[in-house]
């Protein structure tokens, strides 16, 4: 218990960041028209692939002899980046269609 308490104190700034980011996330999205729900979901999904940063850091700090960790982390990186790149490309494709519309109309 005291360990958790210590962690909170040590990471005070982190906790503040957490708090404000939650509010920010709510605020940023709250006024979205339903037209944009699909692209937005897809775009947000791409951002959630940010977990691959962890994989990159893990790979970099792993002993080159430790194949178990290296292989698992690279698979995580591989799978996660499909989510990231695919997500951004496909969102872009969807949104370009809206844009094209604007110019014609």
């Amino acid at each position, binding site marked *: 218990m005291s360990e958790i308490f210590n962690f909170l104190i040590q990471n005070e700034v982190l906790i503040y960041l957490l708090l404000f*980011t939650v509010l920010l996330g709510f605020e940023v999205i709250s006024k979205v028209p339903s037209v944009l729900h699909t692209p937005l979901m897809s775009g947000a999904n791409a951002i959630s692939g*940010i977990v691959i940063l962890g994989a990159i850091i*893990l790979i970099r700090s792993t002993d080159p002899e430790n194949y178990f960790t290296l292989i698992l982390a690279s698979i995580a990186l591989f*799978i996660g980046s499909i*989510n990231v*790149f695919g997500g951004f490309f*496909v969102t872009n494709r969807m949104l370009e269609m809206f844009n094209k519309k604007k110019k014609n109309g």
Partner: protein
Amino acid sequence: MDKVLFLISAFLLVWGLRLQSDPASASKGNKYASVGMLIAIISATIMPIENSYDNYSWIIIPIIFSASIGYIIAKKIEMTSMPQMVSIFNGLGGLSAVLLSFTEINKWLSYTELYPQFVIVVLLVSLFIGSVAFTGSLLAFAKLDGYKWSEKLTLPFQHIINLILLVSIIVLSFLFIDNSADSNYLYILIAISLLYGVFFVAPIGGADMPVVISLLNSFTGITAALTGVIFDNKVMLLGGILVGAAGTILTVLMCQAMNRSLLNVLVGGFSSSGSSSKSSEQGDIKEITDSDFAVQLFYSQKVIIVPGYGLAVAQAQKLCKEIQEVLESNDVEVKYAIHPVAGRMPGHMNVLLAEADVDYSKLIELDEANSDFKSTDVAVIIGANDVVNPDAIDDTASPLYGMPILKVWESNSTVVLKRSMSAGYAGVQNPLFFRENNKMYFGDAKDSLQRLSTELKNL
């Protein structure tokens, strides 16, 4: 240097998401966010790490492969399969988080016995949520793609089973932490978490999948944030929480569009399996012939098209636009009424019609459409069902009761294009089909519209 880059990237992610909530700037927003992500990836790769071995080939090779695969999938995918696409991508994100937490747990354990318990707890939570997001998304994909498992699969005592699973996950977590490094507990933990993801989504009907995907997406975001805490990386934390919060809000917005609570969706909202009191009350349906249909449209003044999933499945959006043009050249006013949850995902219809170059201003939303129907000659319902079901308004026993719908029957007449008389996604019959001023036009939406288009051009 890397700190500055992370800062820029965090700013771009937030600003990009902000821009994405307005149609005019959405495309720009996505570009900002992707640049932000790219900068984050680069900074994670170049930032100084204590005792770093770098291992760059283990990083660059997977990224090159996955970037090209992602690009190809994104290019090739049909706009109709967009919901499935998002759920598969989300599942991959979840799996990635699971692998990462698993590897990280192993690494901490191999270090020393002095690992901080807090780290393991956070990693276990991340492992659990990631697993649920992974199997949940895969099942959601299966439900969306083809109707295979689209029904609600409910085991007897489903809720009790789920509860038992949850409790055993918590117990196992404690056992694992107490008997440190006994990996058996970890493996069972992962297996149960994966199973829980399946049970979590199984009782939810296919029509509610968008809500589920959005929720699972916010789960993946939370996992990313938790992993960010472990790696002490603020961009991961920020990005993850941002997605977690945005996904939650989006989920709630979608539920509101269906006038249902999230809890109601999660426990399998349409659970009464269509035991509507009126469903037995049927009458005769009237079919309309090709030429009658064409003539009726041709001599109308105002036509409103109500597109649904049937249009998407049949890939008939371009034909739809073609018919719109023929009618407009004959001074018929044509509009599209878009129900917020038409199709399989909010905004699904907008994307499809945009693909077919339908002018944005021709799309009208629920409220405007409902006041427009009274002055409409013909409402053409293409492959939509539940969103035009009058039971939602006047049958309290209907599972759809309370959902805001398009009151198509207020127009002079309605024509429903549909493959068969089968029930809609919610599994209930639609009394609209038996109404006096309604006619049916059976067939696959693409074939039907093709016939109609030929007929119209002959007039």
